């Protein structure tokens, strides 16, 4: 916003100033370093100066009728008959990049016709004229038959500079040559005088600066073609700097100029232009005359920006003319034909001398070009006389140097080496060749015959050299292509990320698309393995990266348009299968109607032309089977029912007299029996027809709705009921069978029109505003957007079922409930739509982008049709089933979840809330509250909650105590104190006899005790360092640090219980640099995981020994971590994983396949342990926190299908479906 405002104010100030310099100064000062802003302002000024504005002339209709808007910008183009100075304009004869050329009549001192060129606005006339005057003397000195003389210059009354030149009635040289099919030889003959003309000008001290075909005209004098160079002195006078060239020309003309521009002119600071710049442009002209294309082609310029174009001119080495000819493919036939030469012969003709002549003129380094235009001409003449030319193939070493410097980033070390090796070989053979050739030259006079032999040999050497170069180039190209593909994959990935973060509507789908492409590229990349091995240089996105991004996109609720139909107005069949559209083209005076099947997009009815004019409506409705189309006629009171199968009008209905107000909307009932019309916009009359009753012509007024559109009515599913919101707070139920009002429902909302039935007909869905809210907002501030509500109302019982808040303004609503009852789409006239999931309460916005008149789910409830003036759209919507949020039925005060535990079957969840002395038990599927348990220890910290395997007991591990609830019994907490233990408890093993074993350490001596009896089951009987003690869930194993203060290296020991027999032993993670913070045993005791800090411990970031599911990270800084998995049986290292932010919770899936670790940065990282594969990360808690968040807890459901986490900032549990994610990702090739 601020950007455009800033640009606006600078622009408005700048246009007050007259000269471009002043403007440019102002823009420069105002924009400072902000190049983007500057670019914007420049573009605005350019557009302002553009005489060919789109805004000239009316937009539709006949301009001569006078009512159309005209433009108040001063038109620059002068009309014929206008007198400019001493000249009378006769006719426009051309328009160039920076001006318009007229043929003009000079009356004094002599009467003659001249060419008069008026420079476009935007330049300071005084300066232009001053520069012209400075060169005038030199220009006047020029007198050459191939130069059109510049006669005069001045300023028009409008203040625009103009130039007067000798009138040349000719065509551009390239056109002349092609039109007259000149042979290469004839072309060279015509080119020579051009060189002489330029030479003449150079001798008089005039540089042309803008040599191009349109400035070299060929005119016939006495039947002979004579080239004339025009526009001398104008480029200089108008001082076309780069910016101006772009500013004053349209794209095509920019290209036209740029192609002939010398490398030094393409320098940003081009003060230093000399005659050699013209030599370059002559070279380009010659190149084009021979090959039909310019050295740097238009295509190369087309997509490039200014800077890129200039870089191309400065750096791109063009192919030799003969090479270009052989590359032109199909076009070669045409190019040869206009040169009256066989294609093969043409390339032969050009190869050799002409190649080198042209390339010498085109040298990037001007000191290597011909020194003068005469030298160029002389070499061409030598070629024509079969004499050796001065130009020669550049030496191999020179070219190699250039090759390497041009390709520096791309040439790999290996390629460079190969190049050098080959190069040496080439240099030596080449030098021999050079020696030989000079010898030949010395004897040239007497040994003419030898010359051809020499040429042949040279050609062979060149061919060989070309082949080597081609091979090298190919090798480099292959490697370049690989790199480019990898870059492309990376860029698709980055784009996907950017699109998602930007979050515009449709972002989800766009991002997934991009990721899909990135994955395709990734899977094709051949150097993938290499890059993955050396990840620091990885350009190619990795699969986990792509998956993580895809997961993030998949979690975004969103919709995008998959199809769109035009039409002034639309009608959707009540089942969402057919779409009727009416189109009118007022300018063409045509119109028509069509009906399409929305899914297949197939047209089932299409009428236009005269036939359509007879039935053309202003409102449409389509029956459920698509066979019947209702068209409201322009007379305002009749409706034609059209049979779409035979295009016949099957019946004409009429509106009752009392309902003829403007504003109409129509719909069929779902069974097709009823047709309902709403007439009027305010207090619209509802008019109904029973189509089964063949005798009914006039509709019956059955009621009135406060506002249109007709969507504020709803047919019941069984064809019995019709409902609408009558007054603001009442719903009328109308019986279709009895033909009278059945019931009035008073609802606790101020309704705004949106209404629908559930598909079983028992529930009404309505939208409105809370009455209280509306009252308080009052009339003082009517524009204030109030929170709307969606209400589900039980019709039978007359009570509220559920209520959801929406974010739509208080405007008439359209509403449609999907047939599967899962989602509601609520729209309003302005085009904004809210899609609400009745399952999760989540909603996301869409925007139709124009006025909205109809909203309808498709029959399968998966897509949405929105329609209004101009367009109808079919939306594909994301189904938010990958992530489910279970809002818990909480009591007041229960706001933040500190711990939760899933019951063995994952049907229930036990939740401890911060500061609440109860532990709640909830149904996981619904969030419903089941019961609650006293929690006398709520004030002291919990390490974790866990159910016993049978689910009949719940355990809470706290500071030196464990609480135990018997859920089947009295549910009173039983408290077991473990005072001697100086560690929190993090593991418990359950034996089949009901015994529970916990491991801990007493004064650094590891021990396992029977929780209920307090007996010691096993003890190490020695003080150990870092004495973490874990008991496996089945109570069969104990894993502990097994390091006395003396032993080294430190180790972890796995022992059997209760015997204490050593099963395996392996080195501990802890060393001088990092500390071990966690030990976990995977389900079924397959692996032992030890997690520790990666690298040196950061100050204040030590991880306290954590609980199951939680590592309490204490510091403020993120501490990267690493974890090692060991095979429990063998003690062999199995795998290592790592993360970059302080580790929080560590959990295995019940089958032991997946490992999930949450981090302080809010991410949950997921691995497939069985496949040793990193899967993805999921940002479960997006809010950035500087403090460790203990409530960031995670768990797997019993079947391992879902990853469960606490919600951020609300008392809810979120479930991420791994099963669905896996399926969605597999579709993108990102499965596992």
């Amino acid at each position, binding site marked *: 916003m601020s950007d455009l405002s800033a640009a606006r104010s600078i622009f408005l100030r700048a246009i007050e100033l007259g000269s471009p310099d002043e403007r440019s100064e102002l823009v420069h000062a105002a924009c400072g370093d902000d190049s983007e802003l500057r670019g914007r302002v420049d573009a605005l000024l350019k557009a302002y100066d553009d005489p060919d504005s789109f805004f000239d002339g009316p937009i539709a209709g006949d301009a001569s009728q006078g009512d159309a808007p005209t433009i108040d910008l001063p038109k620059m183009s002068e009309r014929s008959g206008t007198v400019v100075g001493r000249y009378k304009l006769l006719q426009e004869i051309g328009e160039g990049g920076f001006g318009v050329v007229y043929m003009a009549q000079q009356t004094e001192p002599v009467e003659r016709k001249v060419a008069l060129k008026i420079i476009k606005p935007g330049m300071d006339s005084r300066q232009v004229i001053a520069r012209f005057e400075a060169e005038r003397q030199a220009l006047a000195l020029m007198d050459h038959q191939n130069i059109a003389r510049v006669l005069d210059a001045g300023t028009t009354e409008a203040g625009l500079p103009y130039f007067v030149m000798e009138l040349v009635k000719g065509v551009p040289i390239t056109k002349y040559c092609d039109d007259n099919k000149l042979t290469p030889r004839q072309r060279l003959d015509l080119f020579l005088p051009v060189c002489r003309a330029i030479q003449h000008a150079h001798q008089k001290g005039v540089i042309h600066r803008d040599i191009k075909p349109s400035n070299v005209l060929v005119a016939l004098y006495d039947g002979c073609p004579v080239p004339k160079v025009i526009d001398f002195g104008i480029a200089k006078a108008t001082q076309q700097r780069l910016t101006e060239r772009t500013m004053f020309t349209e794209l095509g003309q920019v290209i036209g100029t740029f192609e002939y521009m010398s490398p030094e002119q393409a320098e940003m600071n081009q003060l230093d232009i000399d005659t050699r710049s013209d030599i370059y442009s002559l070279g380009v002209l010659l190149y084009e005359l021979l090959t039909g294309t310019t050295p740097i082609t238009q295509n190369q310029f087309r997509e490039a920006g200014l800077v890129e174009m200039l870089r191309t001119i400065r750096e791109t080495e063009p192919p030799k003319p003969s090479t270009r000819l052989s590359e032109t493919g199909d076009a070669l036939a045409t190019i040869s034909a206009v040169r009256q030469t066989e294609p093969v012969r043409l390339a032969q003709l050009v190869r050799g001398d002409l190649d080198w002549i042209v390339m010498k003129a085109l040298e990037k380094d001007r000191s290597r070009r011909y020194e003068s235009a005469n030298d160029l001409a002389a070499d061409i003449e030598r070629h024509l006389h079969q004499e050796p030319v001065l130009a020669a193939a550049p030496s191999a070493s020179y070219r190699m140097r250039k090759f390497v410097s041009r390709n520096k980033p791309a040439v790999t070390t290996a390629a460079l080496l190969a190049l050098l090796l080959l190069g040496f070989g080439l240099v030596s053979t080449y030098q021999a060749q050079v020696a030989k050739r000079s010898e030949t030259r010395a004897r040239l006079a007497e040994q003419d015959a030898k010359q051809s032999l020499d040429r042949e040999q040279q050609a062979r050497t060149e061919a060989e050299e070309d082949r080597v170069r081609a091979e090298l180039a190919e090798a480099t190209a292959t490697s370049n292509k690989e790199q480019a593909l990898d870059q492309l994959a990376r860029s698709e990935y980055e784009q996907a990320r950017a699109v998602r973060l930007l979050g515009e509507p449709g972002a989800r789908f766009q991002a997934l698309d991009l990721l899909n492409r990135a994955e395709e590229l990734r899977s094709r990349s051949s150097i993938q393995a290499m890059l993955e091995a050396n990840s620091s240089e990885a350009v190619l996105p990795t699969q986990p990266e792509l998956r993580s991004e895809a997961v993030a996109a998949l979690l975004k609720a969103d919709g995008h348009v998959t199809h769109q139909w035009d039409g002034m107005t639309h009608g959707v069949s009540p089942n969402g299968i057919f779409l009727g559209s009416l189109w009118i083209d007022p300018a063409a005076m045509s119109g028509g109607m069509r009906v399409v099947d929305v899914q297949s997009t197939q047209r089932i009815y299409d009428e236009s032309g005269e036939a359509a004019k007879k039935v053309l409506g202003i409102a449409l409705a389509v029956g459920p089977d698509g066979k019947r189309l209702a068209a409201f006629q322009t007379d305002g009171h009749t409706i034609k029912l059209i049979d779409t199968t035979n295009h016949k009008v099957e019946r004409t209905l009429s509106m009752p007299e009392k309902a003829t107000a403007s504003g109409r909307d129509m719909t069929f009932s779902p069974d097709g029996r009823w047709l309902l019309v709403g007439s009027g916009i*305010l207090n619209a009359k509802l008019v109904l027809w029973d189509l089964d009753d063949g005798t009914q012509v006039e509709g019956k007024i059955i009621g009135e709705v406060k506002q249109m559109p007709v969507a504020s009515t709803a047919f019941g599913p069984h064809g019995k009921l019709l409902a609408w919101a009558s007054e603001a707070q009442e719903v009328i139920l109308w019986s279709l069978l009895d033909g009278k009002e059945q019931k009035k429902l008073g609802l606790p909302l101020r309704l705004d029109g949106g209404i629908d039935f559930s598909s079983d007909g028992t529930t009404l869905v309505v939208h409105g505003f809370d009455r209280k809210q509306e009252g308080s907002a009052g009339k003082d501030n009517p524009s204030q957007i109030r929170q709307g509500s969606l209400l589900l109302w039980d019709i039978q019982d007359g009570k509220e079922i559920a209520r959801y808040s929406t974010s739509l303004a208080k405007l008439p609503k359209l509403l449609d409930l999907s047939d599967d009852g899962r989602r509601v789409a609520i729209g309003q006239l302005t085009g904004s739509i809210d899609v609400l999931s009745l399952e999760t309460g989540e909603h996301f916005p869409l925007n139709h982008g124009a006025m909205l008149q109809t909203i309808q789910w498709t029959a399968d409830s998966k897509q949405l049709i929105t329609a209004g003036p101009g367009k109808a759209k079919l939306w594909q919507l994301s189904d938010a089933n990958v992530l489910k949020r279970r809002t818990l039925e909480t009591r007041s005060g229960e706001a933040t979840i500190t711990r939760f535990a899933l019951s063995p079957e994952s049907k229930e969840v036990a939740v401890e809330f911060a500061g609440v002395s109860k532990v709640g038990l909830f149904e996981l599927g619904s969030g419903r509250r089941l019961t609650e348990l006293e929690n006398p220890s709520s004030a002291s910290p919990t390490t974790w909650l866990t159910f016993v395997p049978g689910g009949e007991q719940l355990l809470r591990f706290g500071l030196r105590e464990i609480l135990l609830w018997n859920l089947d019994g009295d549910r009173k907490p039983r408290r077991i104190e473990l005072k001697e233990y100086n560690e929190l408890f993090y593991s418990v093993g359950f034996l089949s006899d009901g015994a529970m074993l916990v491991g801990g350490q007493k004064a650094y001596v590891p021990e396992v005790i029977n929780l209920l009896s307090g007996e010691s089951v096993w003890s190490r009987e020695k003080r150990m360092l870092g004495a973490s003690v874990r008991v496996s869930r089945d109570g069969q194993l104990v894993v502990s640090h097994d390091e006395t203060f003396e032993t080294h290296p430190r180790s972890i020991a796995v022992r059997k219980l209760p015997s204490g027999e050593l099963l395996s032993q392996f080195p501990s993670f802890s060393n001088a640099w990092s500390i071990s913070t966690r030990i976990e045993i995977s389900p079924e005791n397959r692996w032992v995981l030890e997690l520790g800090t990666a690298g040196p411990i950061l100050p204040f970031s030590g991880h306290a020994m954590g609980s199951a599911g939680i590592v309490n990270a204490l510091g403020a800084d993120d501490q990267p971590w690493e974890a090692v998995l060991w095979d429990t049986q063998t003690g062999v290292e199995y795998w290592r994983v790592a993360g970059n932010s302080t580790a929080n919770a560590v959990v295995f899936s019940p089958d032991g396949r997946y490992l999930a670790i949450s981090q302080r940065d809010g991410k949950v990282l997921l691995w497939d342990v069985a496949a040793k594969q990193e899967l993805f990360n999921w940002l479960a808690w997006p809010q950035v926190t500087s403090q460790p968040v203990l409530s960031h807890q995670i768990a797997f459901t019993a079947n391992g299908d879902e990853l469960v986490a606490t919600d951020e900032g609300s008392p809810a549990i979120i479930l991420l479906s791994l099963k669905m994610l896996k399926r969605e990702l597999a579709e993108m090739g990102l499965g596992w």
Partner: protein
Amino acid sequence: MADVTQILSQIEQGDPSAAEELLPLVYEELRNLAAAKLAHEKPGQTLQATALVHEAYLRLTGRNTNECWENRRHFFAAASTAMQWILVEAARRKLRLKRGGDRKRVELEDIAIPLNKSPERLLSLDEALERLALQLPEAAEVVRLRYFVGLSIEEAADVLGVSRATAYRHWTFAKAWLQSELDK
């Protein structure tokens, strides 16, 4: 007729949501007029956007646009948007025909009568206008009024309730901005 007068007076009384209701009404009237003309007038004639708007006003209020300025300003605000839709819709259709979307011969003859601007340009203008409206809604509105209703800058200023100088600045800027967008 009653509806429009009623809505206009509601707007006058300061109910902004009433303006929303005006739009469908005006749109419908315009399209109604276009369709009616289509059915009754000879082919070959063109409809003029500005003339349509003025006729719609006459039909909807029973008054001439030249009288009672206060009342017509809201109407024109709605009409400019409605007319833009109609023209853009026509342009889209034309473009589709050009690309061979429809094959009916009759229609191909119809397109011989062109919009004065190429449909591509008109569609680009439509999009650019939407973008402009997001940032400088008032400037976009001036363009609409000027362009689709044919009001003078002074009249547009009155419709929008801004000074003439402001309207001119909006117009000058919007024109340059749109042009630069179209040139992109």
